[in-house]
């Protein structure tokens, strides 16, 4: 892999609530290369979305990034002033959200919402901004873009709205796109179309893509590499085929077993017992040990990352299912 577009080292994003400190993201490190798709997988509350917000500088109080280095194209994001970070957002890095019904402002026309995203970063005329907006709509496959520019969000279907959101993210040709479960709220057929478009667009533009999801089947077809998150930490990472084909962490195995298609017909669906632990004052040790069939006394200490399985595959476990041969 050439020099990565984005490097994240030891990112910690904590929420300082009255009840205590919630470690939503706790020592997360990864890197994404140009044109690469990184799948960030985990259950609700595993910190995957918060990792995305941290990168964008959109963590709302009482949350705060307390440690870590975030480097995008050689620029240290944490060293930037608020205004410099604003210049990066939507320009060098863009984010797409889960629910397309909610991400577009209901009372503003599409052209207004697209043009403002261009004018926030470029000193161009309104007319040329509009032309660029139209171009972006064409790129994401929206028919009759001229009419669509004058429409309001409620006149679009869910899939179309997500296309518009993607078009907005692409407007300034960002180096990094963070997609936070952008297909979860859509029909399966629409989901397929959006996935296809995203894959095509990142290949064309060479942007790095972080795809946040809980849906392993989406990741399987899309991602080059996968990071599995649990309780604010990355518990396994590696090439997509390695992690999904030969998982080393019991949690990854559990996730794969929970996919109904991987179960045998007529048998009871398998599930991971128990619930994700509360991130409030999480005790020392492996956070998955309460739910893990392989847990031993050793798991009361925090496991470190160790190499496992395929090339670059790493796992945070004392009892990995596969080790280096």
């Amino acid at each position, binding site marked *: 892999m050439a020099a990565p577009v984005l490097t994240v080292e030891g990112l910690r994003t904590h929420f300082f609530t009255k009840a205590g400190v919630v470690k939503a993201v706790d020592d997360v490190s990864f890197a994404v290369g140009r044109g690469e798709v990184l799948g960030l997988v985990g259950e609700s509350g595993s910190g995957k979305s918060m990792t995305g917000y941290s990168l964008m500088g959109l963590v709302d109080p009482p949350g705060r990034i307390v440690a870590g280095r975030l480097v995008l194209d050689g620029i240290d994001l944490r060293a930037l002033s608020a205004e410099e970070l604003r210049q990066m957002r*939507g320009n060098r890095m863009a984010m797409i959200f*889960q629910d397309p019904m909610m991400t*577009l*402002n*209901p*009372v503003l026309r599409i052209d207004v919402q697209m043009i403002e995203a261009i004018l926030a970063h470029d000193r161009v005329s309104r007319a040329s901004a509009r032309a660029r907006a139209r171009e972006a709509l064409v790129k994401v496959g929206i028919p009759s873009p001229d009419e669509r520019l004058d429409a*309001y969000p*409620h006149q679009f279907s869910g899939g179309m709205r997500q296309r518009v959101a993607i078009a907005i993210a692409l407007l300034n040709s960002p180096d990094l796109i963070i997609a936070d479960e952008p297909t979860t709220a859509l029909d399966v057929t629409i989901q397929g179309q959006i996935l296809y478009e995203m894959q095509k667009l990142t290949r064309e533009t060479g942007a790095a893509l972080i795809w946040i999801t809980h849906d392993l089947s989406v990741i399987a077809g899309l991602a080059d590499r996968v990071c599995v998150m649990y309780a604010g930490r990355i518990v396994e990472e590696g090439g997509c085929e390695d992690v999904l084909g030969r998982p080393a962490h019991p949690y990854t195995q559990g996730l794969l077993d929970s996919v109904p298609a991987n179960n045998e017909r007529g048998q009871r669906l398998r599930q991971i017992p128990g619930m994700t632990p509360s991130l409030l004052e999480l005790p020392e040790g492996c956070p998955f040990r309460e739910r893990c069939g392989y847990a031993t006394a050793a798991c009361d200490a925090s496991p470190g990352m160790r190499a496992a399985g395929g090339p670059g595959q790493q796992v945070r476990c004392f009892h990995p299912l596969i080790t280096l041969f």
Partner: protein
Amino acid sequence: MQSVVVLFVMSLLVFVGVYAIGNPIDILINPQADQIDRERAIAALGLDKPLWEQYLVFLKGALTGDLGRSFVHATPALGLILTRMPATMELAIAAMLIAVVLGIPLGLWAGLKPNGVAGRTIMAGSILGFSLPTFWVGLMLIMVFSVMLGWLPSNGRGPTMLLFGLVPVSFLSWEGLSHLVLPATNLALFKLALLIRLTRAGTRESLLQDYVKFARAKGLSNARVIGVHVLRNIMIPIVTVIGLEFGSVIAFAIVTESVFAWPGMGKLLIDSINLLDRPVIVAYLLVIVTLFIVINLVVDVLYSALDPRVRLAEAKG
């Protein structure tokens, strides 16, 4: 169509209600008058007829724009009210302006910084605005600014000038403006508190929405996110409330007008009730109802200008 029905029902209710309050003859006629004088007076005012007939006479007149003659002033009731209307309108508009110009920015501030000192102070202040009775605040304003400090006059309108050569208003001269300040502030206080709370609640709710996060993710400046994305959305409920409240400001200017001896419609109404001047009371209430209807209409129009979803629904229906 609906509004016509509302007006009709309202006129019936008011007419019967006012009839039930008391007999104006006892107040209007010299107690020493003899029976013949008395009966002549009753007949002249049309009070000898049964209620339903009086109502029909009134209704016939109302259809031609004649709402009856004042018992006391012996002039058309509607004309009497219309001459007082500019004073009340000026007061109401001034009060509403104060409430809007101060209330929305203060509410925004409190919504953006709910835990800051300023935000908390604004909210505490708005509770005062809600809970202090208007007449008491009016008296206090007079005490402080007129009596103790002597800065502002305490009663009347001051000299008026004609706006567009038609409407007499106070605000065109310094003297008149100084008369307007205290009553307008007094009347504005409650609405100000209401707008602050409404704007704050809307802002806080709006800030949690995904479209605000998405707008920030686009790299928009804070000013644009708040000034366009947030404000456009919270304007919808705010305009509704401003519209409704404007009607009630006109209708309930009575207290303020009484305290500051402001020669508006409210003052006229109180005087008329004291004298049981039935036609004026009836005409006043009908004028107010008409105003409410007109304001609602205007709000509806504004609504569709602000919210594209309403526009679409109308186009379909």
